[in-house]
């Protein structure tokens, strides 16, 4: 009974998904191939949220910054006309470097806003997103000299809104291909995801992971015991940003083209909704929650518009429903979290 109560959100969403799947009338193969694609594109974003949650900073909506660093790296790769493995290595390396730098900046800001990290991380995400758009829409061609005329708008200022990331996709495709529902997929992405999951598991077992948990449980106690809490929190945010950067690279490699100005928008909400659907709270998240959540959330995400189409003759109904789910689940998670905390305080008081 307790198990069911603790996992009420995933169970509810699972039931909803089953109903939506039934109503949508799609084949299981279609659903699994779509879910697989979305799983590849989103799982690392969701994994990126774990460390900030465990060190008590709530959900890090600033993973947008990680996505931005990859997009910058990819634009630069294309601008410098790199191809083949060189392009992949260069964009990966550059996005890592940028992610560390930007992650440190985000961490600096978040450490100044203790207690309201979540809303501040939303604002950081928004601000960095516009600054990034500003750099590539206005700065490119005016201050930064462009090298590749193919990716620049005709007026000579600003990068095109959609650019072809073929050089990176090519490096991915053809490595360990397999077929699902008539489409060819690469196993390489799965291998990368596996490696990053193992890295995250390892980090959780190291000194950093243990200290992060201590900071998350009680920051002032940890501080008194001599744990450098600000440093631990910064490291968690930087690692989170790196994960997000790698995830965006996987996304671009899988997608083939890159939406320069909109590709990074919305990923934070979807990742947050997915991890919460998987049964995490804003105070506690496990790797298990990520995997369950991404699969459930995206299965519902795919089937609900089709279900709406079949039931109300209106595809937008399902679309509204899924965006309500994405935002609503965050509100519900915060409410549940606060209730649990109150109960815990009460229990401590009685004891």
């Amino acid at each position, binding site marked *: 009974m307790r198990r069911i109560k603790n996992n009420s959100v995933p169970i509810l969403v699972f039931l909803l998904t089953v109903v939506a799947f039934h109503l949508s009338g799609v084949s299981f193969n279609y659903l699994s191939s779509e879910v697989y694609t979305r799983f590849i594109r989103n799982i690392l974003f969701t994994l990126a949220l774990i460390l900030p949650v465990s060190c008590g900073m709530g959900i890090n909506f600033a993973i947008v910054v990680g996505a931005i660093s990859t997009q910058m790296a990819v634009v630069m790769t294309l601008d410098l006309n790199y191809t083949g493995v060189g392009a992949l290595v260069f964009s990966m390396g550059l996005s890592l470097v940028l992610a560390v730098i930007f992650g440190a900046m985000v961490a600096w*800001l978040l450490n100044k806003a203790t207690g309201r990290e979540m809303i501040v991380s939303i*604002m950081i995400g*928004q601000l960095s997103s*516009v600054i990034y758009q500003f750099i590539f829409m206005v700065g490119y061609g005016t201050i930064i000299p462009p090298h590749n005329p193919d990716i620049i708008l005709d007026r000579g200022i600003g990068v095109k809104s959609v650019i072809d990331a073929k050089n990176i996709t090519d490096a991915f495709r053809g490595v360990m291909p397999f077929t699902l529902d008539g489409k060819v997929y690469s196993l390489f992405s799965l291998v990368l995801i596996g490696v990053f999951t193992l890295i995250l598991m390892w980090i959780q077992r190291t000194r950093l992971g243990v200290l992060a948990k201590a900071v998350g449980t009680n920051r002032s106690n940890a501080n008194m015991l001599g744990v450098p809490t600000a440093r631990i929190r910064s490291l968690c945010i930087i690692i989170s940003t790196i994960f997000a950067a790698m995830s965006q690279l996987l996304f671009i490699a899988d997608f083939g083209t890159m939406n320069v100005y909109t590709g990074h928008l919305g990923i934070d909400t979807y990742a947050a909704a997915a991890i919460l659907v998987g049964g995490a709270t804003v105070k506690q998240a496990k790797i298990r929650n990520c995997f369950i959540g991404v699969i459930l959330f995206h299965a519902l995400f795919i089937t609900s518009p089709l279900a709406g189409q079949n039931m109300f003759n209106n595809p937008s109904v399902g679309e*509204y429903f899924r965006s309500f789910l994405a935002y609503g689940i*965050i509100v519900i998670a915060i409410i549940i979290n606060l209730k649990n905390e109150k109960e815990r305080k009460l229990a401590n008081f009685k004891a």
Partner: protein
Amino acid sequence: MKIKNVNPPQLIMTVFLLVLVAAAVAVDISLVGVINDALIKWAMNGVIVLSLIPMINVGAGRNFGMSIGLSAGLWGMIFALNYRMTSWTGFFVSILVGVLVAVVFGWLYAKILNNLKLNEEIVGTFAGYSFIPIMNLFYTFVPVTNLQMLYPIGGQGLRPRVNLENYFALILDNLWQIRIGQIVIPAGLLLFFFGMAALLWAFSKTRTGMIFSAIAENERFVQISGFDVNRYRTIGIIMSTALAAIGVVVYSQSYGFLHLYDGPFMMSFPAISAIVIGGAVHNKATVKNVLVGTFLYQTTYLLSIPVANAVLIPEMAELFRTIVTSGIILYAFIFERKESRNEKNKKQ
């Protein structure tokens, strides 16, 4: 004005406004048109910004979930338009119905927020976001009979933009216009805005208004003194929601369209940014903050459009506005808290 009273965002925005004015003069943009537009924009957005005051003053944070109140105003206008009410009847019925709906929405919103003290802002953001798809479902299925409001094909679901031209577009803007040379002062619109502001100012002097600021200052103390804090918070949140509903009606009559669906999605951030520029802090906002902040924010944006067009990068104006909006809010979250904390430490 003492130097102490000018906060850094306000200073930066003022300097920036002056730079933009200089740039506008340099590229030969007529300032008369800009002044006319600035007056309208000021009052048009002003009421929405005013709606933040009660919630800030009762200590419930900046209202990031403003789209709940805005949706209530949209309900009011849908009601008025559906019964084909034109001119003043339409305008006032919209406000009346909007406020009634806002009381219900605000009460529910307050129920949620009162359970989540100190987390109002993050919860408000997502409560506002998740409210929009619910409203979209409503717009899709609402049984409206006025064909001008429905999609031309299918006859189900409201259009994303309903033209208000035959109803009450520009009704306040055109009221009592005073012409001085080329400059047109929309006295009716400004008087409505100042009237709302005066009412809010008067409210802050009443007993309830005083209790509001006491709660924002020290909630525990008020609780111990025997006041029902949650009741006052509910009143404040309902007031904010209702004012937002009135604000969106004023905004829409100026804009000329009823913007449904994702219209209210991003409207809370510019409003919050404006009030922060005006000098409001997380638990205290005055009418003066709104007047100054909205004017600076809107006029700067207004001026940046022709200047951006003159340098041939029209996207710059919108990007710049978003940078200012989120930058200012971020500033408010990061630095203001620290200042107030320092003050507390000094007192001890």
